[in-house]
Structure formats: C-alpha cells, structure tokens
C-alpha cells in the first residue's frame, strides 16, 4: 500500500483552484524556498492548503555536497517553516549548488568518490540532527560526469543512505535523462537503490536536444518514463508519487489527469515477489 498516495507540485498559479475545486490529489509538494519569506500570500495559501492536504517540503538550496560550511541561516528558516507546516517529510537533492559563497541556482552533480561520500554523509547527519528528522535526497538530472568518480551514482546514493541513515527521493525522469546523457542502463540504477529507503518518486517531462536531454520540467511525462515508472514500482513496491511541473504550467485539471495516469500505471504494476 502506497502510504501517501499521489501528489502534485504546489504552484502559485493553482492556489485558488485547489481551494475551490478540491481536486483529486492526495498531497502536495511545496518548494521550501518559495515559502521562506516573511509573510503574505504564499504563506497564507500554503497554510490553507495544509489544512486540507498533507504537504511535503522540497528544497533546492541545501547544497549538501558543497565544500562550503552548511548554511545555518537556511537551515533555521527551513526548520521554522517545517514547524509551521508540519510536512510529512523534507527533501532536497544530492548535489552542490554553489561554492565560496556564490550560488549557481542549479543542481550540480558530485564526483562519486569515497571522500565525497564521507563528506556528504557527515553533512547529512548534521542536517538531520539539526532538523530532528530524516531527510530524503533526490538523484539529479546531470549533464556532466567527473573523471574522478570511482563508483556509479546509484552506488553512491545507496552507500549514502546507509552511512547517513537518510532516505531517497527517486526521480524516475532524472534517471532517464542522466542515463541518456551518460550512457548507463536505467534498470541498473533502479536495481541499485535500496528499496526500503525509497520514500517518494518524482515524475516530470524534459526537453530532448538531440545530443543531450535537458531536464526542463515543462512538458508532460513521456512514454519511456511511464514505462520506467512501472518498472520501478514492480521492483520497489508502492511508493508515494508526484508530478513536477515548473514551466509552461497547464491548468490544474490537466495535471490531475496526468496524475490519474500515474494511478493507473501503479494499479497494473504490482511488486514482483522478492527472490
């Protein structure tokens, strides 16, 4: 049984429609940074939506892999937001977003080395201690891989979950994107992550540029990603799933219908019996 069901990314454009139409959505994922503001409309709507739906917080600025010290101000704001919203869980990305005080506002992959693993695991433990809860880290879409890497992304993610005692947000679209860009097998990734750690799945669309796939979140989920999602569910069992759309955002109804497709895929993709 999928404990939370099927969710959508919460976008300002849909605030009113959500409150007025009570859509067929089990939960919403709010982008933490959008609500790290003193007050006004964003926090008002998030609070009202939280009164009706479970909410999870998803951040993009934790920069868990950076060589800079952890940003205590950011963590304090995140903790205050969590105290106000009482999210089901808090997630961010396995990446770095800046160095030397400068921010790239992008999710840069890490070199997958033993040294990086120890560094990130130490930081994840510190963050979890500060927040008083486990966090989920998401695999990112990437366009670069480093010469220094000594293991695969999924081996790194699995080792991190074990060492830091954190959970995983598996972005099925990002697996598809990165597999194309770097030439690995999507099923190796899914088989490589520990199934008991995967607590959420992301689905999204992207932009195929010919030589590389760019993760734009501006289009419907493609068929190959739906097939991979079905495969993930067969291998991992039921997992709370949501659709992310950040650009060219359609009316709420269109996303609710896309989410229905996730429900249908999940209904016909029962977990395989463990060997």
């Amino acid at each position, binding site marked *: 049984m999928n404990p939370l069901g099927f969710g959508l990314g919460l976008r300002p454009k849909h605030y009113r429609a959500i409150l007025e139409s009570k859509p067929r959505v089990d939960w919403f994922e709010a982008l933490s*940074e*959008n609500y*790290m*503001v*003193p*007050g*006004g*409309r*964003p*926090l*008002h709507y998030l609070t009202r939506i939280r009164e009706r739906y479970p909410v999870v917080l998803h951040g993009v*600025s934790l*920069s868990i892999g950076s060589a800079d010290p952890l*940003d205590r101000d*950011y963590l304090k704001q995140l903790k205050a937001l969590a105290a106000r919203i009482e999210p089901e869980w808090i997630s961010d990305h396995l990446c770095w*977003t*800046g160095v030397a*005080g*400068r*921010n*790239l*506002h*992008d999710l*840069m992959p890490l*070199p997958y080395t033993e040294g990086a693993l120890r560094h990130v695991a130490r930081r994840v433990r510190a963050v979890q201690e500060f927040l008083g809860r486990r966090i989920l880290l998401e695999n990112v879409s990437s*366009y*670069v*891989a*480093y*010469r*220094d890497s000594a293991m695969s992304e999924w081996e790194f993610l699995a080792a991190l979950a074990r060492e830091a005692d954190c959970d995983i947000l598996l972005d099925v679209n990002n697996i598809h994107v990165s597999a194309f*860009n*770097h*030439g690995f097998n999507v099923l190796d990734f899914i088989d490589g992550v520990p199934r008991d750690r995967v607590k959420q799945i992301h689905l999204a669309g992207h932009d195929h540029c010919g*030589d*590389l796939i*760019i993760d734009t979140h501006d289009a419907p989920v493609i068929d190959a990603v739906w097939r991979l999602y079905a495969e993930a569910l067969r291998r991992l069992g039921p997992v709370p799933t949501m659709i992310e759309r950040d650009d060219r955002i359609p009316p709420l109804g269109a996303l609710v219908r896309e989410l229905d497709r996730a429900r249908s895929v999940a209904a016909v993709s029962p977990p395989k019996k463990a060997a």
Partner: protein
Amino acid sequence: MERRVLTTRRADARRRLGVYAEAYRSRLVEALANDYPALQAVLGEVGFDKMMREFVAAHPSRQPNLRWYGGEVGRFLARSARSRRRPLLAELARFEWALGLAFDAADAPLATAEDVARVPAVGWPAMRLRLHPSVQRLWLRSNAPQMWRAACAGRKPPAAAMRLRPSAWLVWRKGHEPFYRALPSAEAWALGAAARGRDFAFVSSGLRRFVGAERAAQTAAQFLRNWLAERLICAIEISRQ
C-alpha cells in the same frame, strides 16, 4: 573544471558545462523577469534580456534563495552606461522591487479605530504608531508608477517624464495585494516620523510648518484616521516618557 569533466561520444566537456552556464544565466534572468514585469514590458523582451544578462554578469548570486537575488537591479540601472541616461528605468525598478517587498512582507495584526477610541485624550500626545511591515516610502522623480500601471494592464506606457524635485509615494499591502499611492509632502513627513517611532505630539508639532499651527493637530488626527482605514497601522502604543 573542463579537465575534470568527462568527454563522451555524445558530447564533449565544453558542451556539457555549457548547459549549466546557459541555465545559470537564463534562470537568473527568468527570476528577474518575475520581479520586474513592468521593466520587462517597457524594455521589451529582447532589451530586458540583454540588460539583465549584463546585471547577472556583474552580480554573481550570493543568495541561496532566488527571491532575494534582484534587489540591486535599480542601483545597477542607475549606474550602467546603457541605462543611466534613462533614469526612469532605475526608478521603475526601485518601485517594482518595493511592490515585491510589500507582497511578501511579514504579516501583522491590524489596529482599528476602536483601538484609538480607547486612548484617553490625555494619552494622545504620547501615542506611538507601529506601522505594518509592508509600509515603505519612496521618492521618485519620474512617472514610474503610471508607467508600471500601464505596463501591467498591457497598455502602451506613457512617455517618460522627469520632474526636478522628487515626490513621495507610499507602497504597502492590503490583504494579499500590494498597493501604492502618492504621498503629499506633509503626510510623507508625518508617516516618516511615525515610522521612526516619534510620538504623536512630535508629529503634530512638526506638521505646523506644513499646514500652520491652527490646523496641525487636526491634520495629524485626519492622517491617523486615514492610515487606520488603509490598514497601515498594526498597533497603537502609549509611551511612558
């Protein structure tokens, strides 16, 4: 960095890093377009993109949260070679940023006319007003607010007009929406004094030089009524001094 990144048959290291470089620029410009829609309408999409890419090149982001990245655009436009001869642009940017600050300023309970009615007459001179966190005063020489209104309504913006002396504007939030209006100079001064925590006796006596001694107290009382009705005041406090 390029030496550390793998080149594959699909794409070389430069192309791969280029994806991030372009994403960085376009993400920041997109955030700025979100903060400055009227500036974008006045400059046109291409002009805005060009000018904001210059801003991005000159201002590496030091903000983890994109919400706070664009605060320096007004100052940049006032200095930049391309825009400093069009001072309207810098003022429009300052005005839009102030509206944005009002939009998500902290929430606060509002004071009412009943709160004032509870203050005995002898308490009035010692009254201090706590203004809503969204309240800001701006001095503009241009017709940036009219320009903003036209741009947001999708109308052709009026011609830029600059005055010699700046005039005061009030920006704040009512409910969930940012508001603005012109502030006559006496009111601008009085609101500034109130914002600095000066008591009502100080405000009333300072208004003498604007409206004369006989009308000063009455003007101060009228301002207070207006400010309460416009939801500018969060609390009425009586100072002990």
